[in-house]
């Protein structure tokens, strides 16, 4: 009983939100150019499904391409940083500095380098999403229990053994956990870049629609983005559960 309510809760809340939104728009007679009602947005989504699909696809693949780069690069850098304290110390300030740069500011540079189009979007998505992966992987490696390390070293294990047997497996939950965050950030990156410098993608579509005062289409674009974002998040949340179920279950165990 409570289980079904638990499972239905997200749907109930989402539908409730839309219902309130719809009711508010009708009740207060809100101008479509300010805030279109959900029904109007859905209508726009149906009417413009072709451009939405086409641009939505562009956004999805640029995001995934940037995310893919971020995963490979982030994993590699994370392993490197987690491997040695010296590298960690050396790279830490650089990474912090890099991460604190708003990535919007980088887009114009990328445009100069690569021209308008999908490449800047991919790179922005990459730049914005690799950081959490690096930090998480490095944390997983750096927090090996010292006693476990002692046990292995007293057996003659070298650094590589310790990394392979303990470090990397134990960093996996951190890694898969960071993918959820990274994919969401990757969307932010690609859409920001599309808004500024692109001729395709949902960001581009929304800027265009905005300058033509087609507010329902702008919101339809937003909706498409939300759908893509939620879908990808769900994919990586499911992957996380699949790959590292032991981490969840062991943290819930009685003996600790």
């Amino acid at each position, binding site marked *: 009983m409570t289980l079904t309510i638990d499972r239905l809760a997200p749907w109930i809340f989402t539908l409730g939100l839309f219902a309130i939104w719809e009711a508010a728009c009708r009740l207060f007679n809100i101008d479509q150019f300010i805030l279109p009602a959900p029904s109007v947005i859905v209508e726009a989504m149906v009417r413009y499904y072709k451009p939405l699909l086409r641009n939505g696809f562009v956004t999805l693949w640029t995001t995934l391409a940037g995310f893919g780069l971020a995963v490979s690069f982030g994993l590699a850098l994370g392993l490197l940083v987690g491997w040695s304290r010296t590298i960690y110390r050396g790279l830490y300030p650089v990474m912090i500095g890099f991460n604190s740069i708003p990535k919007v500011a980088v887009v114009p540079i990328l445009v100069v380098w690569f021209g308008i189009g999908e490449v800047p979007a991919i790179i922005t998505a990459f730049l914005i999403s690799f950081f959490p992966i690096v930090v998480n992987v490095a944390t997983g490696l750096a927090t090996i229990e010292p*006693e476990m390390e002692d*046990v292995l070293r*007293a*057996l003659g294990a070298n650094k590589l*053994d310790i990394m392979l*047997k303990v470090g990397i*497996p134990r960093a*996996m939950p951190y890694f898969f956990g960071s993918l959820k965050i990274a994919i969401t950030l990757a969307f932010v990156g690609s859409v920001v870049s599309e808004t500024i410098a692109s001729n395709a993608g949902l960001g581009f579509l929304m800027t265009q629609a905005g300058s033509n005062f087609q507010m329902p289409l702008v919101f339809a674009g937003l909706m498409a983005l939300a759908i893509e974002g939620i879908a990808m998040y769900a994919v990586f949340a499911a992957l996380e559960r699949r790959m590292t179920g032991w981490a969840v279950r*062991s943290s819930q165990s009685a*003996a600790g």
Partner: protein
Amino acid sequence: MIRLEAITLAYPTRHGDVVAVRDLSLDVKRGEFAAVVGPSGCGKSTLMKLVTGLVKPTKGRVVVDNHTVNGPLKIAGMAFQNANMLPWRSVLDNVLLPLEIVEPFRSQFRQKRASYVERAEALLTSVGLSGFSHRYPWEMSGGMQQRASLCRALIHEPALLMLDEPFAALDAFTREELWCVLRDMWQRLQFTVVLVTHDLREAAFLADHIHVMSARPGRVIKTKHVAFEKPRDLDVCYTPPFVDLVHELRQDIAEVRTS
């Protein structure tokens, strides 16, 4: 087997060096069961790390097996207060871990896996964990994990077993049970043991020699031979000589704590 020759060890810290042990000397013969007791913070865990070569002495020399220790030993089995099981491995795979690292098992691991598994299962059975090998550590109680941890420390039949308060987190009954498990294993396999403990009864029940350490900077101030006949039964803990011995150790430690 083990000889510590006037060891001094200082840990460098932000507030200057902390001298953990000073002039620490210790002798443990091959096949002997040595217990180390002493007040908290006196350097018992440090002693373990010195013997296994995980830290280098600032002064003095560590000799194990007639060789001066210059780096990690490569042969010692270790177990701590925490079982330190890897949660993504089954109990069996946890126990097999040393064989994936120590030569000559390491290079034969693939071919001989079946026989290694058999060996691990036999060891698990001897500590009362038969049928649990495919469970995960987090599906077991603390006492069961600690048994598995002992198996992991012994699977490669090390000449030296180092135990740092392995039973400290267990309830009294489980602890006495595991004393007997350890006693039987030691009687059977004849390895050398260094056991650090806070439990004086534990030391008196299991050990051949009990080394009492002073407060930090720690050194061995007294070595007590335990003469009770072996293998010992738990009943020995209730005999007057045993109680006297524990009492004496207690007083020694109380003294070094206040001095």
